[in-house]
């Protein structure tokens, strides 16, 4: 894929995700990567997150989110490729 390719993935996060710090943390981290990170659904144990941007940065978002703030535990992340534009 060329260097300005982008893709959009739906992340399904599972774990102990209820802490109020989590959604603002996600927004900040997406901003720091310069990509779109929109939460489409959120509950105490599951969060759906639409992530759009260059593939390497979407990977970076997954890594960052897998850690998140200290009061959150992300047990697993399922990724589903919705769209990719070479």
């Amino acid at each position, binding site marked *: 894929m060329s260097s300005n390719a982008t893709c959009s993935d739906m992340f399904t996060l599972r774990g102990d995700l209820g802490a109020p710090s989590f959604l603002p943390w996600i927004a900040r*981290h997406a901003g720091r990567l310069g990509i779109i990170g929109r939460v489409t659904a959120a509950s105490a144990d599951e969060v759906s997150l639409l992530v759009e941007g260059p593939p*390497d940065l979407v*990977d970076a978002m997954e*890594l960052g989110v*897998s850690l998140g703030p*200290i009061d959150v*535990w992300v047990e697993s992340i399922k990724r589903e490729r919705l769209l990719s534009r070479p």
Partner: protein
Amino acid sequence: MTDTPMLNEWYPVGILTQLTKAGRDTLLMGEAINVACDSLGAPVVSAEDGRTLPVRARYGHVWTSLGSPTKELFDIPEADQPGRRLVDVGVVRVKCSPLRAVENFLDIAHFPFVHTDILGAEPHTEVQRYEVQIREEVDEVWATKVKFYQPQAAKSAAGGITTDYMYRVPAPTVSILYKTCPPRPGEWDVITLFVQPMAEDLCQVWPWMALFDDQTPMTDLIHFQQMIFLQDRSILENQLPRLLPLDPGMEIPTRADMTSVAYRRWLKRHGFTYGAQLVAA
């Protein structure tokens, strides 16, 4: 003394062949301890209040714990494999978190810049995708299928080769590296980093190796590894924050940092926070 799950783990505190009866005073997680040997040469470790601590003698080093470990010291089968040279590299003191020292050892993207023309060189800087998992059955972090082009991968390597690596974290402050062994294709050279947590921002690193290499003199093997580690020290003592952030709020991990992220997740899950920073600075 801090009460953390890390208390009940094994930590390296000395080299077996260098013990004396009088012993040497050192620090373990903020507590003063003395590392000595008895009249038969067996290691004895005592704490500040005089109590003797549990001891294991393994992989050329003395291991002890301030708490009561629930499991035995991790295993390195290769250590008992005939034909390997076992190398006690020595000790390097580093003013950084013991967890930062381990994280640095799990990273290959820095080879071309920190270990230039030895473990890596420009323009061979790309980090190919590799695999990382926490192996539940042994509760260890493993990175596999790691490949990197290296100008001089080991003393025994003649020229530049694409080196295969595996990384393993069997304990909070121990990292083991398995790398392609030039003279013995199909076998792995074993290079380990045993880290003694002296304080949350101070540690001593005891590298140890089990190699197939019959040509290189022992002193060259030791100097090669010490030089590599001294190059790392100038990095480790200039990273902000000094403790290891478990929340990457001030950092930008990319795919090349996958092993570091898995290590931090593993620490977070176990509550291994001695030397960690919980909230992003």
